[in-house]
Every structure is written in C-alpha cells, then in structure tokens.
C-alpha cells in the first residue's frame, strides 16, 4: 500500500510540492491536496494581472484539471480542514470526513491583514489575497469608481495598478515616507512613485489611515491629520499573517509561523510545513521562490533523501507592466558603500551595495529600477558571496559587459 501524504493547502507551494514528490518518487505516495478555495490551484502572483485584465481566469491555473487526474492526486478544493489529530495521524474536514495520513504537510499560506480601523467592516472594504478578492473588486469597478488602497508595498501597488488599469480612480495611501520601503531605497521609490503617477495612480505618503467612513457602505477614508478622501472602495494591502491556527491547535510548535528545521520538519514527527506558513531559522518567507526551494527540499525529505533548506536571499520583482523593479539583499546598504548608476532620461536606476569581505569585495545587495534583466545575475553574486574584485570596474553595467571584458 502506498504511503498516504496529505497536504493541507492548495496554493503554489502545495502544487510545486506535488510536482517535486512525483518527480522524486512517482508511485510512492497516495497524495491528497485539500484547498479551501473553490477552484483549481492557481498562480497567486498573477492576481494583479487578472485584476488588470492582462490575463484571463483560465490563464492563472497552475495545472489543468487533467494534469491532477493524470497524476492520480486526490485534489479536494473548496474543502476546509477543521481539525488535525497529530497523535492519531488524521485530519477532519468541514464535511465531517476524516482522512488518515502517514505524512502531513502544512501548506496553509497566510491571510491578509485587516487594519482594525473604525468602519473596517463596512461593505466595500476589501483585501487583496485571493481570487475571491479579485472578483469582489471587479464587481465594484464601474465608471467613476474611486478606490483607496491602503499599503504602498508590493501587493498594494499591484492592486492599485490593476484597479487603475480597469478605470478606477485609485489612491495609494502609505504610512511611510516612500513606497516599497522594505525593498527600495529613496531614489528607486521616488522613480516608482513618478511612474505610477504617470499611469494614473495617485500616491499619498506619510498618510496614516484613521477611519473608514460611511453609513451603509464605504464613502470616505479619513486620516489621522483630519483630512479625508471620498472613495467607494478601500483595499487593505498592509501585509499578511501566516495561517497557523490549525497547526497550533494540533500542538505544533509555532512562533510567527510553524517552526521547521532545514528539512522542513515540524516539531512533531511526520508533520511538515512549507511556504508562507513556515518559519525557518526565524524567517517567514512571503515570496514564491523560497517556497519552491522548500518544496524541492521537502520532497527529498519525504522520499528519505538528504536535503536541506538553508535559507534564501530573496529578491523582489514588482509585476506592474512597464515598470521594472528588482531588489535583493541589503538594498539599503547602511554603513556600506554603494555604486549608483542612474539615467533619468531612460528612467533607469541601479544601486549595488558592496562590503569588504575576507576574500575581497562582495556584493551584498542591489536595487534595479527600470531595466532589471541583470537582476538575477546580481542575485547570484549576492547569494554566492563570491568576491567581485575582478568585475569591479564593469560590475554596474551588467553581465554582458563583464563577460566580454573578462574574455
């Protein structure tokens, strides 16, 4: 009899894990995937494109239904797990059914954070996390519609761009003094603000939301300085929180996320976690790349191979059509020295942060704006921490020039 592998969560991490497990040991596991959303697993990264109508619903499916069938995966979407019996090695679903497992994986992702503002429960206050959110937003799009997006991070900007592209008069409301402050320095953030504004997105910085006003539904967003703007819709895009209630209730050790070791094992044997709900070495990753790497490692672990996830240097790409933003590593470089290259005419900006390492100068972070195709090359240099002294003079101009000059 095949071992029973149950994966709670039907997102990108879960899908990739299935792929990896099947690739690693095609017939070893009977796999069940339980997804709360009532649709095939999809590429969450494309939600903003979906909102912007750059892609269709069908375009975002990670795998077609036929694929799941062909792999023999028991894919249960629209189903919720209500309880986990760690001792008894079973899970209970919201329809009352109970599934036994030999290996259990938490891939529960995270939930959008809702600010506890007065009026936050009014109709028209939305988050931007899943297909249902996109549907709600799209339902609210009508001529003359006005929206406020609270949060000037990656998600908020993508939501704002999508709404603006659909004709909504959008204002991004950000509490910090610059957009994407966790990924961008002031220069790149300034360029980004200009480019968004050129695309019709209004941006308010240093704006602290105080209340959402309205009798029946959202009518305005009020700020702590007493100002307010009239809107029909408020999208909260102020971050996500790992979805760990179920794991915690089952007795797994958690902090921000489910604590896992380098093989993605939780505190209880045969139970694992990956993706946005997992906390590894104190870090919870909110990006797809580390989740995919974790999926690869976890598949190896499930198949009894040695593998370890040793953390990831994350890089951020903003998916806004025509605006290239790439950020990786120590992008601020406080106390370090930086190379800056900017061409305002071409709307390009590049900053590389260097530190002196034991073996030589190393690249520790970068911000690329406008033209980002060299980003991965820099990310490699950052991740590998290899000395770049031999590339020093041409480094900022990218791999093509470096390769030729080295030749």
């Amino acid at each position, binding site marked *: 009899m095949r071992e029973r592998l149950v994966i709670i969560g039907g997102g*990108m991490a879960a899908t990739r894990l299935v792929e990896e497990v099947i690739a690693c040991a095609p017939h070893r596991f009977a796999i069940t995937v339980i997804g709360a959303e009532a649709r095939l697993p999809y*590429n969450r*990264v*494309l939600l903003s*494109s979906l909102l912007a109508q*750059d*892609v269709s619903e069908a*375009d975002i499916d*990670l795998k077609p239904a036929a694929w799941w069938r062909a792999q023999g995966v028991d894919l249960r979407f629209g189903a919720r797990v209500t309880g986990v019996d760690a001792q008894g090695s079973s899970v209970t679903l919201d329809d009352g059914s109970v599934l036994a497992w030999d290996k259990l994986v938490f891939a529960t992702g995270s939930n959008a954070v809702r600010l506890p503002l007065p009026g936050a429960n009014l109709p028209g206050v939305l988050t931007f996390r899943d297909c249902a959110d996109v549907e709600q937003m799209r339902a609210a799009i009508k001529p003359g519609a006005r929206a406020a997006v609270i949060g000037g991070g990656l998600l908020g900007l993508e939501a704002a761009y999508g709404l603006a592209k659909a004709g909504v008069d959008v204002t991004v409301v950000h509490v910090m003094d610059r957009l994407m402050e966790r990924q961008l320095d002031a220069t790149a953030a300034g360029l980004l603000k200009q480019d968004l504004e050129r695309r019709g997105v209004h941006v308010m910085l240093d704006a602290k939301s105080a209340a959402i006003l309205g009798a029946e539904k959202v009518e305005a967003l009020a700020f702590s300085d007493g100002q307010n703007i009239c809107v029909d819709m408020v999208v909260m895009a102020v971050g996500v929180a790992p979805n760990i209630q179920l794991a915690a209730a089952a007795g797994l050790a958690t902090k921000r996320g489910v604590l896992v070791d380098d093989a993605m094992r939780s505190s209880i044997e045969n139970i694992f976690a990956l993706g946005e709900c997992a906390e590894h070495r104190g870090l919870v990753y909110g990006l*797809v*790349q580390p989740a*995919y790497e974790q999926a690869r490692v976890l598949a190896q672990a499930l198949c009894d191979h040695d593998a370890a996830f040793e953390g990831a240097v994350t890089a951020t*790409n903003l*998916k806004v059509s025509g605006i*290239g933003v*790439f950020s990786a590593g120590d992008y601020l470089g406080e106390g370090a*020295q*930086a*190379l*800056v*290259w*900017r*061409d*305002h*005419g*071409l709307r*390009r900006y590049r900053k590389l942060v*260097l530190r002196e390492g034991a073996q030589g*100068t190393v690249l520790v972070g970068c911000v690329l704006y406008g*033209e*980002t*195709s*060299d*980003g*991965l*090359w820099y990310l490699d240099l950052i991740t590998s921490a290899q000395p770049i002294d031999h590339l*020093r*003079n*041409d480094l*900022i*101009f990218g791999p*093509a*020039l470096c390769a*030729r*000059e080295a030749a």
Partner: protein
Amino acid sequence: MEGATTMDAIRTTCPYCGVGCGVLATPDVMGGAAIAGDPDHPANFGRLCSKGSALGETVSLEGRLLHPMLRRASGSYERVSWDSALDAVAEGFSRTAQDHGADALAFYLSGQLLTEDYYVANKLMKGFLGSANVDTNSRLCMASSVAGHKRAFGGDLVPGSYDDLDGADLIVLVGSNAAWCHPVLFQRMQANRAQRGAKLIVIDPRRTPSADDADLFLPIAPGMDTVLFAWLLQEIVARGAVDAAFIERHTSGFDAALETARQIAPDLASVAAGCRLEPGLINAFCDMWIDTQRVVTAWSQGVNQSAQGTDKVDAIIHCHLASGRIGKVGAGPFSLTGQPNAMGGREVGGLANMLAAHMGFAPAEVDRVGRFWKAPQMAQREGLKAVQMFDAIAQKRVRALWVMATNPAVSLPKADHARAALGALDFFAISEVLLSNDTLNAGAHVLLPAAAWGEKDGSVTNSERRISRQRRFLPLPGEARPDWWIICDVARRMGFGEAFSFAGPAEIFREHAALSAFENDGARGFDIGGLAQMSGETYDQLAPVQWPLRMGESAGAARLFADGVFPTPDGRARFVELSKPSLSMATSPDFPLMLNTGRLRDQWHTMTRTGRSLRLGAHAPEPCVSVNPQDAAQLGLTHGGFAHIASPFGEALLRVDVTDAQERGGVFAPIHWSAQTSSHGRVGALVNPATDPFSGQPELKATPVQATPMSFAREGAFVGRAPVELPDTFWWARVTLSGGVGYRVASDWSILEASAWFEQSFAGCEIAELLDAPQGLYRAAAFKDGRLEAALFLAPPQGEPVWDSLKDLLAAEVMDDSRRRFALSVRDAGGLMDRGPMVCACFGVSQAVIRAAIEAGAPDAAAVGAAVKAGTNCGSCVPEIRKLLAAARVAQSA
C-alpha cells in the same frame, strides 16, 4: 582671380612660422577651405607641416569678433558702428597726447600683421603722433638677431637663403628645435642629409626631437652658447682655418674680439665646465665645424630669447666671418625667424629702436624719413621696447595703448603683471579677430574687428628675405576690416588724412618700397626700390621674391655679402667685443630649477588659431612641464602627476612629464596656454623679465623656479558641445574636439559635489550618472534629443584613461538606448545590445532571448521553458510567453 593655379585655388602664404611656406587655398561652400602646399613656392615646394596642413580647420567664424564694440562702465561690451569705434580710438589717443604728451602713447604690434598693416601703424606713430613707442611681439622673438646683425653687418640682414640648407655639408642648429618649430626647413635639412650626406649638429640644453638623430648633440648649459662659440673662434685661429684675407679686407675689430674670446673661453677645461659639456664633445664639434667649408650655423629662440642673445648671435657670426664662410653657397650664419612676418615688421621698422626701412634715429635719418612722409611730428629717439613698455604702462607713463594681432597678457614675461597693467590704462584699444582672449579680457575699451588670415591681403617676408603675398580667399565676415584700413581711418580722424589716403595694400606697399629706396646709396641693405613702381595688377600677381631688389633689378639677391661689402660706414663687417655670459638670474635654494620655455609641435603661440583644430589638439592636450627623472625623484614629482611651479614672478600648475630628454637642473614648459585654454597654464606668468642690454629681448628661457608635487583627489575630463564655465576650484585645460570641446580636469571635489554641479549645469538635459563612492569615481552624461550634450568623468588620479571614450561619445550622433546604456562604461558598446524588456524576472530572460527560442522552433511555453528556463519558476510570465508565441505564429502565417 590673380594668383590662381587651378580653377579655384588661391596662392597665399602660411601664417605660422618664419619659414613662410606657400599655400594653395581652395575655399569650400561651407566657409572653410581645402589647404595644400604650393608646389611652386621656393620655401616649401609643396610641403606643409602639421600646423599648416590643418589651416582649413582654423578658419571658422566661431568665437570671432565681428563688430566694433565699446566697453561700458559696467564692463560689458556694446556693439557700435565703425564710426563710433574709430572716433573713440582717435579721441582716446588725441586726448592722451594732449594731456600727457606723445610718449604716453604706444602701439604694440605683431609679427602676424602684414607688412602693409605694419607700415601704416609705424608711420602713424613715428611720423604723426611723434613717439617711437611702437613695439611688437617680435621683440620676444628675434630682437637679438636684429641687434646682432646690425652690430656685425651694419644692418638687419640675413646673409643666406634656404638653398644653403640644401647645399651645406654641415648644419649646426643652436637653440633651435627646427623639427617642431620650422618643420618644413627641417625636412629640407634631412633631405640634404639623406641625399648629400650632410651632417647635423644640435646644440641645446634639451634633447629635443631635432636632436633625436643628429650626428652630434651638445647638451649645453643654458646661456653658455657664447662661451662655446668663443672657443670655436679660437680653435679656428689655432688650427689655421682663418680666412686672413677676408678678415683683413672686409672686417674690423678682429684682434679685440679674439682677445675677449680668450677671456670668455680661456681653455678647453673651463669651456667644458662652463658649458657642462664633455671636452671630447667640444672637440668633436670644433673638428666638424672647422673641417667643413660649407657650414650653416642656424639658430632660433634658444639664442634670441636670452638676456645674452645679441652676444650669442655675434659669437656665431664671428666664426663665420673669421673663416670667411659667409655669403657663399651652403655656408653662413642663419637666423630662423619665428613669426610669419617678423621680417616684414623689421623691414618697415616696426620696432621701438628702429625708425623705418632699416633706418634708425640719427638726425639725418629722422630728417630723411620726415621729408619722405611729409610728417609733421617725427619721433626723435627710440621708444619703449616691449618689456619696458608694459612697465611704463604699469607706472602710468604710458596711458593709451593700441594692441594689434597679439596677446601680450599671455606672451610677455611676468605675464600676470602685464595683464594687470593693461587694466589700468586710460585708453586701451585692441584690433582682434576673437571675442575673447587674455589681453582683451584685461579690460580693452574698444574692440576693433580685424580681418584674419584668409581674409586679409598683403605681403609677408620670411627668414630668407623672401617677400610673398598673403592673399584673401574668404570674404570679410561681419564688419571685420583689414588692419591697414582701421589704422588709416583712425589717422584720418586725427587729421592726417592726406598721408593715410591709401586705397589698398598695393599702394601702401609701393610707398614702403619707395621709402626703402629713398636716398639709399647702398648704405641700407634693405632696398626694394625695384618694387616701388609696380602696378596693382603686378602686386596682385607678385611671385615670391627675395630682397634686396633695387630699382632697375628684376630679381632679388639670394645671398648677401658675397662681395665682402657690408652696409657699415666703412663697408666692413664688425667683430664685436663680447661679454662673458651669465644668466640674468641664478638658481637658488628657493628656486633651484631653471625654467626653459618653448613651443610644441602642433601649436602656435597662444592657440587662438591652432587651438581650433582637433587634429592639432590631439598631440599634447595639456599644459605640461618636462622634468629630468633624477630631479623628479628628488622632488617627489611623478610622471602624469601635477607640479606647482613658482618663480619670483608668478606661478602655474602643470602636468608633469618625466623624460630623460630634459637636462638635470632644468625644466621645460610650453608657452601656448592662456586663461582661455587653461586654468593654471599661463607659463608667461612665471617668466623672468630681464632683457638683453642691446636687443631688449627678454630672457624667456631662463627663469629660476621651484617645483612642488601637487595632487588632486580626482582627475578626468569634461566634454561638451560648447565651452562651459568650469568650477573655480578645477584645474583644467581645453582642446577642440570633433563635435565640441574637451577639457582635461582635476579637482578635489567629492563625487557628490561634482554631481550637484553637473546636474545644475545641465538641468535642461536628461542626465545619466554613475556614482562609485568606494572608488571615488564619478561619471555623468547629459543628453539632449538623444545626443550627448556634455559629459564629466572623474576618478582618482592615474586611473583608467577616459579621454578617448569621451571623445568618441562627443563625436557620436544620436545614440540609441543600447549605446547610451554603456555610455558611462568607458567601454565600447559594440556588440552589447540591449536585450529588450525582461519577460521572466525569475531567471532574467529577456524578450529577445525568448523570441530567439521561439524562432528556433519552440512550439509552446513549456518548450520555451525547457530551452531558456523562462516561465519555469513562478510562472507569472507564462501568459506573456504565450502572447509572444501567438505573435510569432501570426507573423509566420502572414
């Protein structure tokens, strides 16, 4: 048109050195001209040097003074009519003469003026204003040769011809870097060496390019030429090489001169010590000189620009007189003159210590010229020579000055002092071709736009007494006028209309020629009476001709003194009692190095003309100082670094060139840079104002200086479409580049300061910048309509050379994004194409790469992913890949 050989080519004469090469100029439709050597001109037979060849690049109207202007109280200039400007000059001179007397007036002229211009200027001052305060930049050039010639020969007469350089068996260059400064003549010498086996000896403190393949090189100590030639004179006697008959019949003063030569050069050991030469070298020199009948000893500024210059000239002439090697084919002393018309200026008498037409201030001469000119107010005595003149200006003894065609604020010794003095004049007029130069900027009250080379018409005389026509081949631009016209019109306004009613240069030349023959019984060597009657047409077509050319003669004399007759009262050449030479200033612990100055190969004077040529600017783009390696090591100077050079008179900041061509204890700096072309390169400011007691020529080549290493945090270059005002704190030197101008720069500014300046200066442009704080490197480029407008690259000293990259950027037309992307890289962008928009952010796969994969046959997104990885990570680009696939299919089926 007269003087034309081919359809459009105009025969004219090069405006640079004293070789006086014939030029064929063919105007083009763009306002420039194609330039070629004139194959029929006897000076050059079709050859031209680098400077002459580039003349076509120097005739643009950029920066030209095109209208008369008057300075307002605010210091700004206002365009006025010629009437107003000429009235202002007439009024300025009249009022000053009235209030302070004629000797408060002065003209400072130039070897760049044509003979006709020179003639009327000299006539106006010396015959009609009543002062002899007419001096010229020729004072800085060949005054010592004039004085030496006059002492020895009784007149300012160059005995030989260029033919002698072809026919000599030995050529000795003394203080002459002819390879750079008289290149066409040097080529003739080299041809003689190659074809006839002539030998070349170079005597110079520096191992110049002329000395590179000389048969003998004597690295003589500065100022000691007189000692060497005094010794040669004794050796000529000791070895029986004297021409006793010639001495007896045609000279005077030989015994006394020989006696002083013995005092100056008592024995070989002391000569060797004084000249810092190996005795063997001295012997070899004497052997070669004495054993070669056909010897030409030619000299230039190393002899002339000296407080002992006149003695040096005569020390050389003595040897030729004593051996009778003068006036003969292939033999003689030969002054290679520096300027295109220094000789013409000497002929008209445009020097303070000459009156006119080789006459001086003896009462009979003053009377004769006065009668010829019908002049009311003849100058009675010598006027102020250049250095004295500027001292007199500083002391307010001279209060009204008219400068024509020269830039004394750069070229005079103690040049900062001269520049300051100009600012204190009561009245200061300038005839100029440029809107800006250091002299004009010193505070000229009236700017008179003069015709430039190619626009003016007249004659010049070269080093072999050959008169050639400079002909006009370009229209007069704006309101520019020939200098003679300007001078005559001022004279008219001062009430001397009758004496200055010339219709054109031909008429002036005829009067000049007539004066040379006037009451000339042969006592004056300069006689061109044969040209006094020529028609305007003949003048226009005048072929190059040597003087003297007396009335009734049809050809001039190639060689003088063949008959042993000299224009002295007794008809004999004079040996002169010379003084034991010593430099006017010795080095000291404070100023331990002796500064020598001179020219570079591809520049002329203060670069107002050659500086416009991008070819010429490429040779040496920065003001520099050459230092011997041992001195450099001792002083801590490094090749390519900077030296602060200070003398008791001024200072400069120059790039260091460490070279073993430079003698120990001496440094060399070229004279060409002004405040227009450099921030700290005015070498004239350093120079010693001491002058030769006979010629008044300053000691330009021997100033004690100190040299201290200097460095800047950053060095680099700026290029732009037009000149800019660089920050005050920058060291800079400017050159013309293809498409604009370039500046070599150095600065202590931080990269943030540099960035702030650049962004402010080019605020209207799209600016690209690279700030590399760890390496202290800054690069910026400003673009306008896709074209580079300006760029500034700075890096710590001795970093990567950026000059050529910047030149290429400026030369480029509109840059596409990929070229622009690498504009700041100091690398060739060739082959490094932009890869188009990025599609797969996860793997950094661009659109171009994905298109290529599709073209290579990938049928779907999965195949593209398999081929180039795009879309295989987060997959968010898969829809875009599908669109590219669809577009490719459409394109294929279309």
